[in-house]
């Protein structure tokens, strides 16, 4: 009996600690970066995620099915929204750096982070993935990554039940990696959630939520550009 209690306790501790994901704290770009000579920055963007309705908290299979069925009209609408000039963000960011006198190379191929090897060494601000390969293939000293992870609508659930009204979401991060050391010289997490302050239930076109999505999109784009604006 005691062994069973111990096993349940252990399982609970493992489960609870597993829930807490670590998120990297922001790193502000050191002013010294702009003074560095002979630096060349490659700008790359991960594949833009498809517009989606994210339903975190609906974890069991039946819960997922119930939540997706409850939000099916919203999902159909979200798929029709436009991301406008979002794919041009790396060019916009590159132009911003060029104006500051930085040598820039825009890498056209989308970055697949899952295909990069893990970085073997531990150091302060070291990236988890090994970006050093870009040093050789693109002849650059730094890599500026725009990594988008969530785009569309976001609604939290507790099993079968929504715990919050949907919001427009734009999430990801943008970071600058020193390819000599594979460490972050800057890291800006992006988590933009925009709500509807009155009625969001307006099918089939959901104008309030659509506006919230475009608010999130514009705020997210502005956050990306502001990280290197100074």
């Amino acid at each position, binding site marked *: 009996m005691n062994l069973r209690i111990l096993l349940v306790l252990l399982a609970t501790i493992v489960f609870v600690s597993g829930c807490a994901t670590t998120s990297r704290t922001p790193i502000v770009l050191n002013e010294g970066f702009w003074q560095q000579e002979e630096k060349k920055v490659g700008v790359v963007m991960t594949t833009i995620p498809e517009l989606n309705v994210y339903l*975190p*908290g609906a*974890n*069991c299979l039946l819960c997922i099915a119930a939540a997706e069925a409850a939000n099916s009209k919203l999902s159909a609408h979200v798929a029709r929204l436009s991301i*406008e000039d979002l794919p041009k963000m790396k060019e916009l960011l590159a132009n911003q750096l060029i104006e500051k006198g930085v040598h820039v190379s825009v890498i056209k191929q989308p970055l697949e982070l899952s295909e990069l090897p893990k970085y073997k060494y531990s150091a302060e601000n070291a990236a988890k993935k090994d970006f050093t390969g870009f040093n050789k293939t693109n002849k650059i000293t730094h890599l500026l990554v725009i990594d988008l992870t969530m785009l569309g609508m976001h*609604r*939290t*659930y*507790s*099993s*079968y*039940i*929504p*715990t*919050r*009204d949907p*919001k427009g979401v734009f999430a990801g991060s943008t970071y600058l990696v020193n390819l000599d050391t594979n460490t972050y010289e800057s890291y800006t997490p992006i988590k933009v*959630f*925009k*709500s*509807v*302050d*009155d*009625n969001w239930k*307006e099918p089939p*076109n959901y*104008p*309030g939520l*659509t*506006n919230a999505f*475009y*608010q999130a*999109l*514009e*705020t997210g784009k*502005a956050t990306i550009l502001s990280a290197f604006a100074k």
Partner: protein
Amino acid sequence: MRFILAIFFSAYISGCSTSRSPYITPIKSQINLQSDSDFYLKIPSDIHVTFRGLVSYDDVEGGQYNMLYPGDTAAVFFAAVITHSVVAESVKNTQKQKLQDLADEIILPYQSSISRIKTQDLANRTVQQLRQTRAICIQTNSMENSDLIVESRPVFLMAKNEKNILLKNIIIAYSSDKPSQVVYRNMIEVLSLPFSARNAQSYWLEGNGAKLARASEEMYAESIALVIADIKNTLADSSKEKTFHYFQDGQKMYERGRLVSENNDRIAIRTLRGWLKSIPIQSKSKN
């Protein structure tokens, strides 16, 4: 089971109070009016105008936890899921009500000045201003001889930084002979013009709140001018949909819509809902 029912009812009762911003589904103008048509502006019978705090729900968090439901029988399981749903809804509403209550505290220092702004004065000055500047025949004293009755329910919302006021004016229009048949319905939002004074409270309260009263009148007049133009179908509606930006509460804000009018101080857009929103042009570049 009794325990579940008790939770259900207590949550249901506490969850009834919701705090929502004014909302209305628009009805496009279905009337052909002559250029010399007579409008009657009907305002709420309340003596004083309504001011509230402007609230944002962007930072409202929702729990993402797993729930274990009792599954003795299917009935117990479904009762537990329904109870959970009612409790979650109640929590959401309580959270929103708390935010609104907190936002409303911003109004407290202004109560005395607000009490001097009377709805009848607001309407009378609007009528005077519109008669002078826009040649609109609009009145507040005789409903019988008017072609159209324009009923207005304004609410002024003050932002947390106290520098911006947003007017939300619900408009319902009907002809005097068929009051039950609504021929136009819409929400008109007007954001106050920016000012450079650092201390917003001193600015608004100067001269017994004269600037607060004047800004309220100007915003209200702007909303009624937009309504009249929209009822007459004279607003431009052919521009391309895009995202407009402006500054509110010290932040860059965005609104998706189409440009319908532009003057020296302001632009007006038709939002995705069909509402009209007037934004100061100055706020594009400065707060």
